[in-house]
């Protein structure tokens, strides 16, 4: 039984069709990486899964339950999200960023939430920075707090929306390392990224999305080494050359 099943999803912003007939499935512990040129609908696809964006047509199932039948706050508790721009709560410390959802959504006591937050901050290597405010952290540290914040909610699935795109090159490695650890630890992850090294080594399935359609989908080795479509070869070739 698949954890996430996306069936024939369509989405338009006005006249502009962003997603067209997109379907795919993920099992538990899968690491699905979506790649594609900018404007191809990758981020929109991700935001449809936790209903930050609503689909026009089709259906999305989480654990065989259509997501529009789930209370949206409950859905988002079960599906974590990590943002390109981190979106850390600017008025709360690293610890406070993690505890907000724990106390207000999961209903933990303040003490329980703090202990859990410190545990997860330790896991992403930020035990020392628990009392720092976002403005006092580097980009890589901010994104690791963002991951701890999503992780502490015990989600069934985490969405990564270009988690390294806003980072300076020397800070990308620390974030990818945390993501690799998560993947190895069996977390189910749906990632939009341009990090081809990560896609190749950590992804269980790679999807190439272009102009709102899935062009090709399969094991990463297949898409990198023996792609069926010229468009895939061209895109992955360009990106691999760049990186």
């Amino acid at each position, binding site marked *: 039984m698949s954890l996430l099943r996306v069936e024939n999803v369509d989405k338009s912003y006005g006249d502009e069709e962003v997603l067209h007939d997109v379907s795919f499935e993920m099992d538990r512990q899968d690491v699905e990486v979506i790649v594609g040129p900018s404007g191809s609908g990758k981020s929109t696809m991700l935001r449809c899964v936790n209903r930050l964006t609503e689909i026009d047509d089709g259906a999305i199932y989480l654990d065989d339950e259509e997501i529009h039948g789930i209370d949206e706050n409950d859905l988002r508790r079960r599906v974590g*999200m990590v943002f390109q*721009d981190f*979106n850390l*709560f*600017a*008025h709360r410390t690293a610890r406070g960023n993690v505890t907000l959802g724990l106390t207000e959504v999961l209903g933990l006591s303040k003490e329980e939430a703090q202990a859990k937050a410190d545990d997860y901050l330790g896991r992403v290597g930020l035990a020392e920075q628990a009392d720092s*405010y*976002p*403005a006092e952290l580097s980009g890589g540290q901010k994104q690791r707090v963002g991951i701890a914040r999503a992780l502490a909610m015990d989600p069934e699935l985490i969405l990564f929306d270009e988690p390294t795109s806003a980072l300076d090159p020397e800070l990308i490695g620390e974030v990818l390392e945390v993501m690799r650890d998560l993947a190895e630890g069996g977390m189910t992850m749906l990632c939009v990224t341009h990090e081809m090294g990560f896609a190749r080594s950590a992804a269980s399935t790679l999807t190439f999305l272009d102009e709102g359609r899935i062009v090709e989908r399969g094991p990463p080795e297949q898409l990198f080494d023996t792609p069926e479509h010229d468009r895939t070869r061209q895109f992955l070739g360009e990106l691999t050359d760049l990186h």
Partner: protein
Amino acid sequence: MSEIEVRGSTVGEIPGRKRLVVIAVGAVFWTWLLARWAYHNTLLDRLFTALGFPDLVRSELGYRQQEPWLPAAPFEAVAEAILSVQSAFGPLEFLVGWAAWPFELAAFATTTEPALASGAFITVYLTILSMLFGLVIAVPLSVARVYGGPILSGISLVYTELIRGTPLLAQLFFLYFGLPLASFFNGFAFVGEGAIPRASILVAIIGFTINSSAYQSEYIRSALQSVDAGQLTAARAVGLSKLDGIRHVVLPQGLRFAIPGWTNEFVYLIKYSSLASFITVPELFRQARNIGSDTFQFTDIYVIAALFYLALVLTTALAMSKLESAVAIPGLGSSARRD
């Protein structure tokens, strides 16, 4: 990241020695004013009497009573000494008159301060209560305006523009004479008794609260709009409802951004509370006007009253800038270094 610090220019940032002078003058003024209020104050007297301490505070001194802690004679003597040499200066004798004027003013002040102090108490009382009640209304108004649907934001918009678009004095007259709230309040036996102030003060508080809530909500609205949209998105993505996201993420940031604008509204209201004099509230300006009518020394009494207002405004600005630094968070709002 540049290292340029963006600084305000309120009294909170006065440097070095000048700062000490401001603090010393402020300390003398407030020590005297608080002592005067603690000693003779009708509202406090009634409040403490109601609480069972009838002798703690006395009733107010009348409006032409001598300040008991400060005699007028020494100032009068200095003024007379200066004026005694006036005739020797021929055409320049008016300069001697000017030199004597501050001492005449000080002597006059000792006979009017008790009345002005009781007026200042009502001014402060009106302003603080109206600001706080106004804030309680302004927060939901501004949230409705920014995050409400078309109906809620429409209601908020109409309220704000209606109140901001009509004169405060007209609003006070409408409440006091038009409704008329004054006679409504006077129908209750407890109004003007114990800790409950007289009807005109109640009407003024209601009028200023309504008026101030509209202005405050505009300051808070623009502060809320300056909170990055990603903040609420992130709160929603964790599973918080929209209202919880606003409460726990947007408001704590937005209200910090709103402090400078809120300070502005606070100092405006201190001065605009003088309009309460037109509905018979014996606040600072009305006391001054009454003394002026009685003595015909309008210039002198308005100069003294102006000094009172100045002291209240500077104190407020200083306190608010202290509040702003006390609640400041690294990287957030006006304390932030701009990239």
